[in-house]
């Protein structure tokens, strides 16, 4: 008998009582109108920053203000210029990315998390290997709760996707919150008016 069969047989001897799967429709009653002010507060509470822009020109202008040109900037957002190509780069070279400007899929109001799927990452490592992360989302791509968030995409069609809520952080040294543990040290979300 294989280990697999052994384990499955042992599970069959388990005595967990039968419980029905609960009806998840109750989660719909928790959806209230979107509140951008609350989103801003929660994103700031997790160390991120939220800004609104009307156009890509305005976005470029603000990015220019935020980051010096000497940084390696990678962008896959239409209209935002890169000065760094990710083609044929080794991991060591990719670790030199200073700023990554990426399209986020959508944002969640209750926790400020931006969902980004692999197709928007450029390369899988970019959202975490970059020093600073900027995510750009159309203003209407927002949901209230995580229950709604999990209805926005199908895991089956995804290879890799992640919710990112604020910059990377740790409190492993005496419970002191420090940003920039391994991933981005800083996260700005730009919501673009369409």
């Amino acid at each position: 008998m294989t280990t697999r069969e052994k384990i499955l047989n042992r599970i069959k001897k388990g005595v967990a009582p039968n419980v029905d799967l609960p009806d998840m429709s109750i989660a719909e009653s928790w959806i209230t109108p979107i509140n951008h002010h609350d989103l801003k507060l929660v994103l700031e509470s997790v160390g991120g920053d939220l800004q609104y822009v009307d156009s890509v020109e305005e976005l470029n202008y603000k990015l220019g203000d935020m980051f010096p040109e000497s940084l390696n900037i990678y962008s896959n957002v239409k209209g935002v210029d890169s000065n760094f190509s990710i083609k044929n780069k080794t991991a060591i070279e990719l670790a030199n990315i200073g700023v990554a400007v990426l399209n986020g899929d959508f944002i969640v109001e209750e926790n400020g998390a931006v969902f980004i799927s692999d197709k928007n990452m450029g390369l899988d490592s970019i959202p975490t290997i970059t020093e600073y992360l900027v995510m750009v989302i159309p203003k209407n791509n927002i949901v209230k709760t995580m229950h709604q968030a999990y209805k926005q995409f199908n895991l089956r069609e995804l290879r890799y996707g992640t919710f990112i809520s604020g910059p990377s952080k740790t409190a492993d040294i005496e419970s002191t919150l420090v940003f920039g543990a391994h991933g981005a040290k800083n996260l700005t979300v730009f919501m673009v008016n369409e």
Partner: protein
Amino acid sequence: MEPTQAKPQTKFNTKSETKPKANLKTKKIIKQQTQTQTHAQLAEGFLSNQLKASWFNKSIWYQRDKRDVATKKLNEWETLRELASDIKAHTLSKLDEYLIEFEEKATANGINIHWASDDKEHNEIATNLLKKHNAKKVVKSKSMLSEECELNHHLENNGIEIIESDLGERILQFSGEKPSHIVMPAIHKTKEEIGELFEEKLNTKKSNDPVYLTQAARLHLREKFINADASMSGVNFAVAETGSFVLCTNEGNADLGLTANSKLHIASMGIEKIIPKQEHLGVFVRMLARNATGQPITTYTSHFTKPNKGSEIHIIIVDNNRTKLLAEEKFNSSLKCIRCAACMNTCPVFKNSGGHSYNFVIPGPIGAILAPAHDIKKYEDMPFASTLCGSCSNVCPVKINIHEQLYDWRQEITQRKSSFTIKSIMMKGGAFVLSHTWMYRLFGKIGGFFVHNFRKISTMATPWGKGRELPDVPKESFKDWWDNNAKK
């Protein structure tokens, strides 16, 4: 009673404390043999440094505080607990079906599934995979299952360098310690201790600034990520209907480990990590971080369904006594646990005895009900490390009746095994005395005599006398008083 409690301070020297003699003795014992010491003995060692114990207590309560604020912001919190509990309970009742479904879907997605009956088999599978890929440098994000299997030790013996990438775990790897907490593994270490450790291991300058130390660790571990041949992790949730697995971290170390350079990822999961559907993730992801650290969600909540081109993902599904627990009617609901650590953050015993006072890999209330299922003899004292106050059950996101199980384990342990002979003799003796009026009165008189005349000895006769003093005892018993006065 001590009239003056040592005032909690933020700065203290953990090395040069002047301690009473008794403490030095307990310290020595800890060094000799950790495994065979009971929770009470280990707790005594922990408490010998009162300043540090008080500081630890505060750090843990700080987590509980943040948790309360975060959960109270959700009006639907209690409903979420019901949903989470029901989803997990349902899954446990059909665990074989969901594991098979998960295996089918994951395999179709190009993920390789392995099954391991115990820690040994798990470690062998992992080692063989790494050897097959000629992987020499492996980065690993925090996994309590790998701690349970003592994987690192096994890999190192096989010539594979395994690097813990979670900052807390890396600190402990440097210091050669085990985690004292499942979410904040190095919570017991002060920044001064970590500063000294980094000076030695990372050549940092003398500092106890968490920002500077974290930055030093970032640079050190970046180099490890970009040179890693392979990566490893645990699993927070595995979704049966899609064959995906989810990892939750704040540092981003799991994501960076998987994506920076690694061509082989091995994720280890206990059989109980399965949930049926994608929509159920909403419930658990909303609760996990809020209940653990008070965050609305972990910084990274990452979903992996398929390996990237040129990479492989392997999942090892591990039993290691979980099916044994599943067959325990009174205790199998402990398998619902999502490892948020709220039960330990709220536990008065955990806060006052430290995570290292529990011999099992998972400390605190949940550890105390999981451990006896692994080895009832080895962990017989763990369910007794509780006041049964019930706070753990109140904060549990999946509604495990932890304090009731602690109580039930005590009965089971006393009934199933005989090493508690003194306790059972005392209990039988006690039952005899209490069921015979004349015996009861006789022992009452003897007890009274000792308390009045040999107070010190009476206090020393019981462990409960440690650090406590007997209250003043009335000159006569209530019965005597009644006989003398009520009839007048």
